[in-house]
């Protein structure tokens, strides 16, 4: 059973590499029961969206 601290590690790594099957399963199991980590996942994924948007805005010369 993953701890929340371990789950955040995997959620961060999921942004950078394909998780293995057992990693994925234990993560999904944890997320199904943990609201905090589910929010954490959404927030980490928002960080990526924000960075993409940031770079796009600079490239397009938008203020």
């Amino acid at each position: 059973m993953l701890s929340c601290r371990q789950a955040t590690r995997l959620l961060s790594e999921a942004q950078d590499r394909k998780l293995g099957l057992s990693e994925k399963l234990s993560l999904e199991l944890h997320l199904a029961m943990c609201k905090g980590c589910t929010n954490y996942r959404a927030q980490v994924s928002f960080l990526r969206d924000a960075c993409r948007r940031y770079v796009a805005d600079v490239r397009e010369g938008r203020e």
Partner: protein
Amino acid sequence: MGERWVVLARISRYNAGALNHAGSHEAPMSQDSSPLMEDDFLVALRRDLLKFARLQLRNDALAEDMVQEALAAALVGERSFAGRAALKTWIFAILRNKIVDHFRASGRVTNVSALSPEEAGLDQAFEALFKANEHWARDARPAPWGDPEEALIQQRFWVVFDACLNHLPASTARVFMMREFLELETAEICQALEITAGNCNVILHRARNGLRRCLDKNWFSPEPSRC
């Protein structure tokens, strides 16, 4: 701010036989039609390139140099592009590669065993979010951010976002920006900075936690006392 780049652009135009402002001779249409021959386009392009370079490098003089080099390379090696957007994308790619080369040349970032006080501080703040059993402490459990997409269209959000990025320790921010702004794969980052994959993961996790907490505190759930 130096005007070297304008001079450089003019020299390049002269070499291309496109000296048309002085009216001494007419430039061939193909040379003349390049957006790089237009001051307005160059000024706007340079502004955007500088913003991008400053963001990554956190050093204005260095950013100026990198942009200068990228523009010089573009002016010398100019190919024909279908439109300004494609040309701009190409020059951004030149700048991006120069920044990556710079990071590669400037060597290793800190390894996990030699944390700076700032990095150690971030790690401590992160550990403090958890109880002894490694589950979220009650006050620290991440709460929903509502509709964060809404934030992306607000100008003030980007001021906070910028401040939070700048608040990250330099080497942490570097790895994060290589991943998220230069869009390198972690394997490429490890290779460029001579760090292990494990180290890279630790640094990215640290950066994301730092940014997440900073945005949470300063944008998504501000303290009532905030002005």
